[in-house]
């Protein structure tokens, strides 16, 4: 139990700094320091088309914190499988979860070798809990599910929270995201939860369409969807937790301060329970 560096694969993948990666672009938007020139170049092109994308990133990250707190405190979830974790920042899932339930177990998954290199910051588990990291790709869900690290850290006989935060919009339709989600959810017992958020196009269709072109032009996956498409893709057959699929900024907000406009947020999120 406790902090275990269970994530080291036999042959660490190379970090290619010449190509942008979404985890580093997201880190740039959040004000982090783990990005290279290629990431910043793509990030700045996205910023030109979507000037409020930093708001998107921050609101998305704040949603993650509220969703995890809800799952631990109100839904009693003690295990998380977080796919598309990104670079360590504030509100890492285990910090939020273990602040409420120190015994919580978390498996982090990302496909960026740089996240692996920084994974130590994700492996600062409480002594009672457990965190682990695996380098894998959402497009190969079986590899995630059958990874010995996953199996060791998570008990698939008990409910868990599956998290795909701002990740599904990187999975293009030809990669069959619905099948990926079904494969993962099928492996989880009833009473498990799915947390997902997705950049959506309805409030800024032109900016999002240009952003998709930028991403694809940079060799990154991108699939613009509207909130209905996202809801159907992510939550079909599940029981949505109120308030449902909403702008991430509107999902159980804390405080009564003013919140960003829909066209600044451009990102929907939801939490649902497997019946």
């Amino acid at each position, binding site marked *: 139990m406790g902090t275990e560096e269970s994530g080291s694969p036999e042959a660490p993948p190379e970090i290619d700094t010449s190509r942008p990666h979404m985890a580093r672009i997201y880190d740039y938007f*959040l*004000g982090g320091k783990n990005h290279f020139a290629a990431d910043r170049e793509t990030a700045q092109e996205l910023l030109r088309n979507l*000037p*409020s994308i*930093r*708001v998107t*990133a*921050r609101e998305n*990250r*704040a949603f993650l*914190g509220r969703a995890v707190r809800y799952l631990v405190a109100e839904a009693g979830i003690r295990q998380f499988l977080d796919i598309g974790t990104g670079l360590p*920042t*504030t*509100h890492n899932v285990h910090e939020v979860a273990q602040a409420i339930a120190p015994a919580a177990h978390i498996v982090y998954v990302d496909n960026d070798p740089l996240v692996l290199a920084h994974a130590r910051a994700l492996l600062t588990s409480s002594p009672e809990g457990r965190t682990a990291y695996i380098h894998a790709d959402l497009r190969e869900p079986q590899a995630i599910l059958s990874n010995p690290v996953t199996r060791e850290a998570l008990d698939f006989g008990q409910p868990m929270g599956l998290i795909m935060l701002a990740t599904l919009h990187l999975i293009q339709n030809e990669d069959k995201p619905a099948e990926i989600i079904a494969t993962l959810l099928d492996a989880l017992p009833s009473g498990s939860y799915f947390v997902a958020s997705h950049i959506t196009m309805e409030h800024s269709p032109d900016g999002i369409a240009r952003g998709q072109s930028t991403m694809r032009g940079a060799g990154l996956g991108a699939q613009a969807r509207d909130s209905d498409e996202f809801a159907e893709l992510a939550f079909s057959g599940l029981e949505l937790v109120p308030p449902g699929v909403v702008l991430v900024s509107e999902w159980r907000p*804390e*405080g*009564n*301060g*003013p*919140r*960003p*406009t829909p066209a*600044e947020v451009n990102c929907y999120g939801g939490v649902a329970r497997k019946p």
Partner: protein
Amino acid sequence: MAGSADSAALAPAEVPRPEIDTSKPHPARMYDYYIGGKNHFAADRALADQALASWPAGRIGLRENRKFLGRVVRFLAGEAGIRQFLDIGSGLPATNNVHAVAQAVAPSARVAYVDNDPMVLAHARALLDSSPEGRTAYLQADLRDPESILESPAVREVLDFGQPVALMLIAVLHFLRDEDKPDEVVGTLLGALPPGSYLAASHLTLEHDASAVGGGQQVYLDAGIPMHARDADQFARLAFTGLEIVPPGVVLVSEWRPDTSAPRPTPAEVSGYGGVARKPGPAGR
């Protein structure tokens, strides 16, 4: 205490009700537009959009300012035990109205709101929904004439100047030019408050993004609306000289006792400093 039903202070009979001129932009309505309210007219939106074209992050900065207001009032009503507020430049009713935040902590809190926009007066009912135990009042007046605020019967009726008062000057001092002698204005107001009172203030700054925020400021100036950003040191000296600054001091409004560990906006996006300070001396009479 009289509750919301007693709104005699809303529009004192002796004060002629000023006209709402919808053809000219007013900063209170522009602020409302930035933070997502609905009380603005075409002229307000047009000028606000011009300012946003120069400073696209303006909405972020002003929302952070409004959230700062909420955290400050919670601190004052909670930890500092303040029960009376004088909120000058209150703006249009929005989220985090001072009495709503304060009375959630202390239902008996009393709040006098002051603004110089007739539109705020028209909407002041939403500021006057006091708890039954507390009291709210609204006065149309201008910060440049602090004596008129202090001598107003409406204010005197709601606030007991023998007890500590929190003076709120949130995002309003930058509307005063140096020739308006803002330090004297602040001095006059604080001079009327007893020891143990607090000043909470925030102020626009150019120091993190001079071109974008400065361009936004120029849009105001060109339209005949005063707007005078000051850097953090100038603001701190202007507002808090002689007072005991509450930790963390004068900081970006987003960094003042944040209530979440979620990522916060960049300094350039926020471009506003804020602080809270206490008037020294033993509290009370």
